[in-house]
């Protein structure tokens, strides 16, 4: 029975309270997560006192997908921003769908291409900030 979103009906997925860590940087992973409800923040340890917030993700976004393609440890920590409900997606099924369903693969590629586009925009923005600071 859910304590975060409902009092009566069971809900799908798994719930996390505000601030709870859903996945941790450096751990091995065997699934990705889709956000069914709420928001999460993606944090990267950059050596400073507080981790660097790389992104905030909302409903329908997924995270943790790198573990599906290679045996990388998790590259970031993902933490709940308020109550969050997520559904995990198993590696076995995910890889099978990539092989047998081209439109599923296309959807994943579109999402990852969008993520690369945002990261490139961020690199350009940060380069501008550095240039301003160095006065060149």
């Amino acid at each position, binding site marked *: 029975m859910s304590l975060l979103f*409902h009092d009566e*009906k*069971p*809900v*799908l*997925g*798994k719930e996390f309270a505000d601030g709870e860590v859903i996945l941790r940087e450096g751990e091995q992973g065997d699934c*990705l997560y*889709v956000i*069914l409800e709420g928001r999460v923040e993606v944090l990267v340890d950059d050596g400073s006192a507080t981790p660097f917030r790389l992104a905030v993700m909302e*409903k*329908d976004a*997924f995270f943790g997908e790198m573990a599906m393609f290679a045996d990388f440890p998790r590259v970031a920590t993902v933490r709940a921003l308020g109550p969050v409900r997520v*559904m*995990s*997606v*198993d590696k*076995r*099924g*995910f890889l099978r*769908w990539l092989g*047998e*369903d*081209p*439109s*599923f693969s*296309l*959807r*994943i590629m579109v999402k990852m291409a969008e993520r690369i586009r945002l990261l490139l925009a961020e690199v350009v923005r940060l380069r501008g900030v550095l240039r301003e600071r160095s006065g060149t």
Partner: protein
Amino acid sequence: MELENYARVAIIGGGPAGSLTAFFLLRLAREMGQTLQVEIFEPRDFSLTGPPGCNMCGGVISESLMQKMATEGIQLPREVLLDAIDSYVLHTGSGSVAIRPGRDEMRIASIFRGAGPAGAESQQPLPWLSFDRHLLELAKGAGARHVPRRVRGLARDAGNRLLLFLQPERGAPRRGEGELLQEGPYDLLVGCVGLNGSGVKLFDDLAFGYRPPPSDRAWIGELYMGDEEVHRRLGNAMHVFLLNIPRLKFAALTPKGHYATLIILGQDVDEALADQVLRSPEMQALLPVGWQTPVRPCHCQPRINLGAPHQPFADRVVLVGDCASSRLYKDGIGAAYRMAKACALTVMTRGVGAEDFRQGYWPACRRLDRDNLLGHLMFSMDGLMRHVPPFRKAMLAVVDAEQQDPADPRRLGSALWDTFTGSATYIDIFRRAAHPLNMYRLGMAFLRAVFLRSRA
């Protein structure tokens, strides 16, 4: 033979196969910069309770389909979800065992295909929404038009395109007795007519050699117990019964809000078999004390797909869903999802000629049909379970031991989990079940059960 911009597509049937085919066709067309005019012909009103609003189904959405839909951004609204399921309990004549996946998470949904069982209308407004209505709205949101008319006949025009003959609306002025309204021509006709009713016979009009798959009847009933009793008795688990009752393959009891849905699969399933299952001690132990089967619970005996269809396509015509290829005994909605996608992908990337369907859509059907052959073989082994008590005990012992050890890969438990949840193909399940370590454990447990039995 390709669809041109603004091509007209007629889909007969607004169940999951029809609505999802419309949705995927429109989504793919939009992504490819093309516009299609898609019309779904579905006379059923999914806001009605009982048989008029229901497409007759057990109403369980598999774990794998829930994960795939979530990844693709297709969510199930809260109002559609009746219950969430996180485990299975297997009941046999030799005891019961709970099967839990490795994760502490709800990933199986129970839903009503229509607006709920007959009699539920007394609690208007209904606290839930029909799953089929939700999918139809999803298709409409993508641009499909819903035509609430029954299709009575099909024909081709001189250009080989399709004409539909529709039953006029009730009360509409008629120019002659039995007069049908003509619609079309359509560049593509998709038949998602299921196996119940006369929908499959429509395609005889086009004489392209289609024959529906072999089928048998199941028994599905909605048992009212009240929310509290349902959850006290069943929890968040689906209960599967492998019992020594002649003609029974298996039965399942699924929590669904105030109701528990009983699904019975077997040979020539009828009221007498349903009554036997309901009176079995294993079932009685789960039902509320003193609970009596209602004289006429809302129930149906839908046809279920047991094999492969013959030639489910022709030029500009294709059949999708139960009337073509589906999963044996489980995950019919998941199969409709996969086949709707395969159909949409073939239409948009290859074309709508018979040869296009043979090369693009037919291999997806054949994969499913071939996997079902292995499913038949696996289900035929249930005789071992029913008639050989030591084997039954051995299986329960192995699954129980697996569940006690968190580090165990749970090969038998996961194979049984996937068999009843529909989360994996039969070949995948077979590979895990036939793992040498699994066979060794089962063999040892079997010998132990035989030894104990002979001593007793």
